[in-house]
């Protein structure tokens, strides 16, 4: 017997998932190194860009964690920007400036390939295993079995920048590492 509306209950769980995802993201940024030319000029804050709508408090959680942990990228305090898909011109211009982290929400108007072309300095986050296995993203969150798990692309460890610390590679039992993303048939 279900007394509670499934939507309301699901939203409660999704909000908790979003908080865990925001925490993962904060940790991963702490374990990532960027080459100097992948960081903004002196005086400009490195940027984390979230693209798409957020209904579960992910952006607010991330903003809160950034303020609490004084999250730095390349030794400089980072800045969070959230752009819903409305102004694509603004969005593309921002990406061309070079983001350090880009998080694609499920309804993001941009795909991984576009973001990678416009902003090669960015670690690209998204949702679902296929985001890494097929779409070429760096990191994705997978929710199953009452847990939030990480799926990481091996490229994130191998390339020179942005590069994830090898310490995370040792947590293979905790994170799933995708050796080689498969090309999509499209």
């Amino acid at each position, binding site marked *: 017997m*279900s007394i509670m509306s499934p939507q309301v209950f699901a939203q409660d769980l999704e909000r908790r998932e979003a908080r865990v995802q925001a925490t993962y993201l904060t940790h991963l940024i702490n374990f990532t190194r960027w080459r100097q030319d992948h960081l903004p000029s002196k005086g400009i804050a490195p940027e984390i860009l979230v693209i798409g709508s957020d209904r579960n*408090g992910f*952006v607010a959680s991330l903003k809160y964690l950034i303020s609490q942990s004084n999250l730095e990228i390349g030794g400089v305090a980072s800045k969070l920007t959230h752009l819903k898909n409305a102004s694509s011109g603004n969005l593309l211009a921002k990406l061309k400036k070079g983001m350090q982290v880009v998080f694609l929400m499920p309804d993001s108007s941009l795909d991984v390939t576009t973001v990678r072309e416009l902003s090669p300095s960015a670690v690209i986050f998204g949702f679902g295993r296929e985001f890494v296995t097929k779409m070429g993203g760096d990191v994705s969150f997978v929710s199953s079995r009452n*847990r939030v798990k*990480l799926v990481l692309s091996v490229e994130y460890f191998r390339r020179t920048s942005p590069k994830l610390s090898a310490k995370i590679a*040792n947590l293979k039992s*905790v994170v799933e590492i995708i050796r080689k993303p498969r090309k999509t048939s499209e």
Partner: protein
Amino acid sequence: MLSNLGKYLFKRFFIRLNIYIVLLVFITILAVPCLQAEKVDSNLSGLTPFEKAELKKLIELDFRSLSNLSIQGVLGYDQEYWANPASVHVIRPEDITLFGYANTVEALRGVPGMHVSRGLSYDNFAAMRNFSGFSPQKFLGKIGGREVSQLMLGSANYSVDDYPIAVIDRIEVVRGPGASIWGTNAVNGVINLVTKHSGDTQGDSVRLLAQDDGTFMGDYVHGGQVSEDSFYRVWIRDQEYAEGSLDSGRAARDDGYLRKIGFRFDKELGSDLNFYVAGGGAIRRLEHTLDLSNRLLFDLDGSTAAPAIRLGQGLPAGYYLPPVPLSFASSGLFPIPIGEFPPDASYSKASWDSISNGSVPYPNGSTTRLERYGIMTNDSGHIVSKLEGITDFDLEWGLTTTVEQTDINMGHLGFEWKQNLYDLSLEANRPWASGHRLSFGLGFRRTDLKVNSKVLEPFAFNSIEDLSVFPALTFSDSIPVLDYDQGFRSFDQFTAYLQDSINLTENIVLSLGSKFEKNDLTGSGIQPGLRGSWNPNGSNVFWLGYSKAHRQPSLRERYTTLNAGRVWSPSLNRWVNLGFEGDESLDREEIDAYEIGWRNRPNENFLLELSSYYYDSKDAVLAATSLTSVNAYEAKDAKSYGGELSIDWEVSQFWRLRGGYSLARGEVEGERNFDFPEQTASLRSIFNYSDNLTFTQSLFYADETQIPSDYNPITIPSHLRLDLGLVWRPREDWEIGLFGRDLLEPYHLETMYPGVDVEPARVERTFLLTLYKKF
């Protein structure tokens, strides 16, 4: 009918228990403005104070902990979930190291509603919300995945069952019965010490603690990786206890040691399939005393001088005169003819004289202090293994096996038991409809015992074993102090539980379930529980709970005869054994426990929790209080009620305050009981002066308590304890701490074991130096 029910409930909760009135007024005053507070729009982008506070905890977790975090929790298991309808307090390792505690049990002092007191021989007694000062047996102790309470005494020794701080993840203290999951003996609550995955303890860690009185504790933990998905750790600990002092200033003769080793091996067998095996062993040697001052007695009532004694004391003719110590009777206070006293050879007078040690207070005078010392040994070893996983159908399950051997020899009492314990349990949970999470489990436990009793030397003289079988009297010179009925040496216990955690609405969470148990001690029983919480906005949670909890009597209470002393009968011209049998008819205690609580978080930096409880116990097992009792223990109806208030306030980025206040009252058959402090309070401060320098301060207050005794009741005065500490971190993984304890007075008293100890030990002002190298 409803009106009558309402009156009954009103009388029961709000009139008869004046504490409820106070708490209700308090709740109302504070709750109204909070309920009227602007509701946080949690549906969109805003975060509630509870969510912000959760994020602050999440950011402290590593990848492994995050990947194991349940999204939908099970009420009763997911202790830190803010909507959990129970009083929960979580102790982190830093709560232990920043205050310089050697053992985890010392950190329980800061938990509102708990009373930790140190007795002789470094035994720490942890009691919770109780009408009985010796209530360690009334809550359930789970340490490192295994239940540590012993069937014989029904209690655990938290000083022995301990781990190095470096391997402890957290200690969850649940106040109040969680009968539907935790089951029998979780009457007052649960202490659950959770250890870390060995993958989180890689490298080396050392902790050394030296006290100015010579007490020393050191442990070393080493963790390594066997393969990509398997990890291990091993550890050793040595604790050397310096000799303390008794209240009178005499040496306590309680120096000794505790040595422990342990290991854990973790392996990830597959995606969401994990296995670990952990084990350990301990050896403890400490001297204990046995008070014999009131154990060699003279039967005044059987003396020809009885009429004159009654007359002299102003007592009516025929008034029963209880036995008094032989030395007291022979001190010349009473007109007893010399010929009525026992001949020296009849009771090995030389042996008794050799253990006399001054005098001890006795009603209207004093008597010879007689005490016997003996080594108490506590050797134990255990292995726990757990296989756990999650299926594609979201079924989370865990299969745990435990094998444990314990050998405890109470050398001062001449009583030893060896216990082999085998435990197998399955715990599982899964969602089964939108908003429901069902948890269930099965368990089987076998306990085998081997019990030996020895006759203590001063008692090795001929006595009538049992005067009640007159005229068919039997005589013996081999009557031990504690004599176990050898007919009861093997015990089985089957358990099962079922609980549903239900999200009734967006704001209301309910848990409903029951534990079913069948055991060889008390038969079958059902322990239902109902808990619910209401989260009207993002800042408040109100909760309530009802549980029917059981406690099974210990083997000591049911099957052990206490031969408390020998009485010289001038009329029989013989010694008579004074025996109190265990009571095989003692049934389980049944407690109806009602709780209410309020959790308020106006912002992420401030948490206020208020809880109140009322326990109605049927057949509570308590020590018999009269020398004329047949049994050592008797069942009585009891009540306990009270409340706790706690705050956790991050005043600024640099300063955190945690405080608690508890009011606890107990009644046994209508009589107030004072062996648990009515009021306790604590205030702890952590001030980070700089990134690497922290000042800590603790204030603890406990009301006066009374330790009952058959001849020499002791009052433990109220005490206020101030501890200060300075912790310096020269490097990120090193901590050096300097601590001062009990700085307000040279010493204070906390507790003693009535009938065994003659007087309480001093808890003295001490200074400690700690050195801690973290992983």
